[in-house]
């Protein structure tokens, strides 16, 4: 298949701010810039970064073998095509020729192999996503074979996280001393502030904790939209007052996604600023510890699920946000639209509570709900929960806790709170990924799962589903598993998160029209965004 | 002399006030008291006179036990006060009390008179009714009973000093050290305090170590007087003898410097000898006789050899080279006129 180059009127001449007369107060002459705020830190080493701001940077600095399509699938990118062996364990990729790294050298198969080995060898960042891939081999300069340990339905999409680095450049900047044996430090220190990619943008300046400034790579093999920004600046702040001032002064094009509803409302008031609510692969959960009283009793959990006021909760979010339909976000492939969904019904809640073995002395079992203090909006949900539960007599204690403590607490069953309010984002656009992340026993000691479900049947079934290469078959298995989880009520499924950004209306942002992939980071793929200074 | 209440023998106190250099750290010392000996008889007022920094207070503080001497010792009725290591036994503390120079700082401003008088009673007379005892003390020093609940700041300077005296009396001591008890007071108040002290001494058979730099006052209260200069005693004599026949040049200088009120007094002053020079710092005591830089009769020997105490009359001792050879004293009056020209 041909690379789905950014849909853009190819013949449109690059908007050149040739005449930038005095009347234009906004960024007149000089390069156009796309400025976005992010929560810091940003790691631009493809083997280290795996958070939102890092992903957003990496996709602009590096190229990958495949590219996500807006509908949740993938399309060829550096790899123009690929073959799969019959046992599903071996993939052979045919690379595009003539792709140049930022230093002018050509991207070849050995770079892909090196990048693969480097990611796996360091083991950090997105390495876990390629856990099933065992080895990579360069067949010739433009052909690479990757071998899997077991068949996986998710291998191809996971290649979205294999960023191809310039082997020679990295080797040249590798410190001999380091934890990776003959690979020294694998160039980690250098790559932290430099890029070795072939992507549409390259690093111009990198100021820790302050900003990352990237400039257009004019030699990129792909196509830029006509008014694609000359520079992209990722700024490290999420302070409401700061964002607001920057927005009002037209010193910021797109805000980060962490602004509160009220802050967004205020931003919306600013002339020329609009709010976008983009679909994500993230769901907001109340994760219930299923192994400590009183929440170890399923009736108790169901009582809570019936008593919670989902509508109000969803109403706290930006308009358009919807209650989650079951354990995975509706945006994922394989989401079961018919899964059982709780709604507020106090009668049912009381009935369930009555069946709970702690019903008689429920007041002696205060339920602690822990929310992450770094995300202040969570407090509202916790408080709402607290007052909802008060209505059916379940005492609730609301605790605000720093993220790190949350991580620490959820690592053991005893310290895991009754309820942890946590956002979880699916690594890949498939329901199975999310189900595995959330409920498989292997994640029980991580913050991804406060439930401690430890359900052997579920484990076996999800593993089986993920190994199913056929998509339809796979999805059918996901459907059943979603029903299975809904029955156990190990979590309250609050809402599917929308990424809310304030943006300047002079930015033409295809994501608004559903033309960009929801995979983390791709909304900020620079070549497709247009900044139109007036 | 069996009726000595206090005997001071070759007392020395050297304070370390710092160190020289960074690597060669040698102590810099102040020889505040440098070999002082005297004794106080039962029931007498022994006067100690000297200029500022001459070590009078240091002697007093050692006597009451605030400092340990560097060397030398003090006997109270024959018992060594410092025999028992660091902490002086309570019975000695009871026997020797002190009245400080500054009435402002010797009474704790945050405690009432009652509290202040209560402390020595509680320690030294624990079985007595302390409220009554305090009243008795107040009566003794002629203050009204409602002073009990006052704070020192509500009292005048003289009254404060009187309270300090009452406190000293509380433990029923036999020796009281009076460190310039009236130098912070007006003359008009001084009279009252001094008279009180004299009456108490008679009534209670107290002995006083009376420190002052006011020679006129000393003349009127002391039975015997010692003059100190830079940590050493330079002359000791009975009071009357002392003022009639001052021998040490420093004593004469002191006497001649006193401003007086009448011609009659003027005649007692060896008026032709005038003060010259500054008192040397006790850190850098000059070699030889410490007074030689200011002495009008200075001889070559004075600059190198420290004189020793010699007895020039009954109970009259002087530490001066002029008196080491018997015929010297006669020379004193004649030479004085030449000194006048020198200033």
């Amino acid at each position, binding site marked *: 298949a041909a690379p789905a180059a950014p849909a853009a009127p190819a013949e449109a001449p690059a908007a050149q701010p040739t005449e930038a007369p005095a009347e234009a107060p906004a960024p007149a002459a000089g390069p156009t810039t796309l400025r976005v705020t992010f929560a810091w830190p940003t790691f631009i080493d493809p083997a280290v970064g795996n958070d939102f701001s890092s992903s957003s940077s990496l996709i602009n600095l590096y190229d990958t073998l495949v590219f996500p399509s807006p509908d949740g699938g993938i399309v060829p990118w550096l790899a123009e095509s690929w073959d799969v062996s019959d046992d599903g364990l071996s993939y052979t990729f045919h690379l595009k020729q003539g792709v140049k790294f930022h230093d002018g050298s050509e991207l070849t198969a050995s770079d892909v192999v090196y990048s693969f080995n480097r990611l796996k060898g360091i083991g950090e960042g997105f390495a876990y996503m390629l856990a099933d891939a065992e080895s990579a081999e360069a067949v010739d300069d433009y052909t690479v074979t990757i071998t899997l340990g077991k068949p996986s339905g998710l291998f191809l999409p996971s290649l979205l996280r294999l960023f191809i680095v310039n082997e020679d450049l990295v080797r040249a900047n590798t410190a001999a001393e380091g934890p990776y044996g003959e690979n020294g430090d694998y160039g980690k220190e250098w790559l932290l502030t430099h890029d070795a990619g072939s992507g549409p943008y390259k690093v111009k300046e990198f100021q820790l904790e302050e900003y990352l400034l990237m400039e257009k790579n004019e030699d990129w093999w792909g196509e830029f939209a006509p008014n694609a920004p000359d520079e992209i600046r990722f700024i490290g702040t999420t302070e409401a007052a700061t964002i607001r001032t920057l927005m009002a002064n037209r010193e910021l094009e797109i805000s980060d996604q962490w602004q509160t509803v009220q802050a967004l409302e205020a931003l919306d008031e600013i002339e020329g600023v609009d709010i976008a609510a983009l679909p994500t692969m993230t769901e907001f959960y109340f994760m219930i510890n299923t192994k400590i009283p009183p929440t170890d009793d399923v009736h108790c959990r169901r009582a809570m699920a019936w008593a919670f006021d989902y509508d109000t909760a969803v109403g706290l979010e930006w308009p358009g946000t919807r209650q989650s339909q079951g354990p995975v976000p509706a945006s994922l492939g394989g989401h079961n639209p018919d899964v059982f969904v709780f709604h507020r019904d106090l009668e049912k809640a009381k009935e369930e509570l009555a069946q709970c073995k702690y019903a008689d002395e429920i007041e002696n079992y205060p339920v602690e709900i822990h929310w992450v203090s770094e995300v202040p909006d969570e407090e509202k949900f916790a408080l709402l929960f607290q007052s909802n539960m008060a209505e059916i007599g379940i005492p609730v204690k609301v605790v605000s806790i720093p993220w790190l403590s949350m991580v620490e607490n959820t690592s053991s069953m005893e310290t895991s709170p009754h309820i942890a309010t946590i956002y979880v984002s699916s690594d890949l656009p498939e329901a199975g990924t999310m189900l595995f992340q959330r409920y498989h026993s292997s994640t029980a000691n991580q913050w991804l799962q406060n439930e401690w479900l430890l359900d052997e049947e579920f484990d076996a079934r999800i593993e089986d589903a993920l190994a199913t290469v056929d998509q339809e078959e796979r999805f059918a298995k996901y459907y059943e598993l979603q029903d299975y989880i809904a029955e156990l009520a190990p979590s309250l499924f609050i809402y599917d998160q929308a990424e809310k950004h304030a943006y300047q209306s002079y930015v033409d942002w295809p994501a608004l029209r559903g033309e960009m992939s929801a995979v983390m980071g791709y909304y900020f793929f620079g070549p497709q965004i247009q900044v139109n200074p007036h | 002399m069996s009726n000595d209440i206090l005997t001071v023998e070759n007392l020395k106190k050297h304070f370390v006030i710092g160190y020289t250099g960074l690597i060669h750290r040698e102590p810099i010392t102040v020889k505040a008291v440098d070999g002082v000996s005297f004794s106080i008889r039962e029931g007498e007022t022994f006067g100690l006179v000297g200029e500022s920094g001459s070590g009078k207070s240091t002697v007093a503080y050692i006597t009451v036990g605030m400092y340990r001497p560097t060397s030398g010792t003090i006997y109270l009725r024959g018992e060594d006060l410092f025999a028992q290591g660091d902490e002086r036994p309570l019975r000695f503390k009871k026997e020797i009390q002190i009245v400080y120079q500054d009435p402002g700082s010797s009474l704790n401003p945050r405690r009432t008179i009652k509290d202040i008088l209560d402390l020595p009673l509680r320690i030294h007379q624990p079985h007595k009714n302390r409220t009554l005892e305090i009243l008795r003390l107040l009566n003794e020093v002629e203050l009204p009973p409602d002073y009990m609940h006052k704070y020192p700041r509500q009292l005048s300077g003289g009254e404060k000093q009187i309270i300090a005296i009452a406190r000293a009396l509380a433990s029923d001591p036999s020796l009281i050290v009076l460190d310039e008890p009236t130098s912070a007071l007006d003359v008009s108040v001084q009279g009252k305090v001094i008279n009180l002290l004299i009456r108490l001494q008679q009534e209670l058979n107290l002995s006083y170590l009376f420190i002052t730099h006011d020679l006129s006052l000393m003349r*009127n209260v002391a039975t015997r007087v010692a003059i100190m200069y830079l940590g050493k005693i330079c002359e000791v004599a009975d009071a009357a003898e002392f003022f009639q026949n001052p021998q040490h040049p420093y004593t004469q200088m002191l006497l001649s410097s006193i401003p007086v009120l*009448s011609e009659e007094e003027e005649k*007692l002053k060896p008026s032709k000898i005038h003060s010259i020079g500054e008192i040397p710092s006790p850190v850098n005591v000059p070699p030889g006789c410490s007074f030689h830089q200011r002495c009008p009769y200075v001889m070559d020997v004075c600059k190198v050899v420290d004189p020793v105490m010699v007895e020039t009359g009954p109970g009259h001792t002087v530490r001066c080279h002029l008196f080491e050879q018997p015929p010297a004293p006669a020379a004193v009056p004649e030479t004085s006129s030449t000194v006048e020209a020198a200033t």
Partner: protein
Amino acid sequence: MSVTPLLEIKNLHVEFKVYGGVLKVLDGVDFRVNVGEKVGLVGETGCGKTTTMKAILRILPVPPARITGGEVLFKGRDILKMKERELRETRGRGISMIFQDPTAALNPVFTIGAQLEPVIRHASPENRRLSKKELRKLAVIPLKEVALADPERLLDAYPIQLSGGMRQRVCIGMALATNPELLIADEPGTSLDVTIQDQVLRLLQRLVEQRHSSVILISHTLGIVRQMCDRVYVMYAGNMVEEAPTRKLFANPLHPYTRGLMAAVPRLSGGGVAMGIPGRIPSYLHPPSGCRFHPRCPQAMEICKHEKPAFQQAEDDHRVACFLYDPAVAEPQKEATTA
């Protein structure tokens, strides 16, 4: 001796506004210094000696202090009404002052030189044009005059580095550096040892005699005043109570306060220590009515409680503020006391 008054204070009233009320400290002070005269001022602590002198120079700290009445005539002009400029001319060159406590009077954070130089610079119009170097040369002179060794080095010393005697001398030097017509010496040397005090006083005496300056010498040691002054004022609680030539005053003190004071001084000739004056100086917040001394006065009469005695001539050139010597009031009592 000339009798032109150089300085004349008439009916001076000074109050201090403190929390809790007004301290009526000076209560109609009359005072005079003639040209070339050395005048003593004695009295107990807190009787207002320093306040009077500060009022003359208008250096009372003004928020608490307030001059509520009277005049201070210096060479006929009222200092209290002078404009800033005129006042500055009068200060220093006209009247200069040696402060009671030399330690407090020297700014601890400036070297002697740094304090002396501006004084000299403003001592005369010519000096104002001098360079720093020339000024420094001039600054050495007053230090030499007060017999300080190594004055060059002293200019760079801080007050803390000097002994008490040296500080006192520096103060004297500074006060004399402007060649004042009137020198106020507030208890010079009281904080010093007798022998050093004696030195300082003799030095002061010599210097003012050289310059023919008039002097006001304040002290509460009567002996010093007797030794140094031509005429003496006795002050009690903000009032002048007696004034006479020195010899006369010491031979025949009139006011009961003066007598009490003199009796209380221990004599070198022995004879015990008198009891002193009973009581203490009254509170200025609520000063006694009438004669301020009456609560302590052994000879107080009924009238003393209500009326303030005038400061008037009892004999020629001997003035006293006491009803005992007011022929109109107390002829009989006077007889009794002299007997």
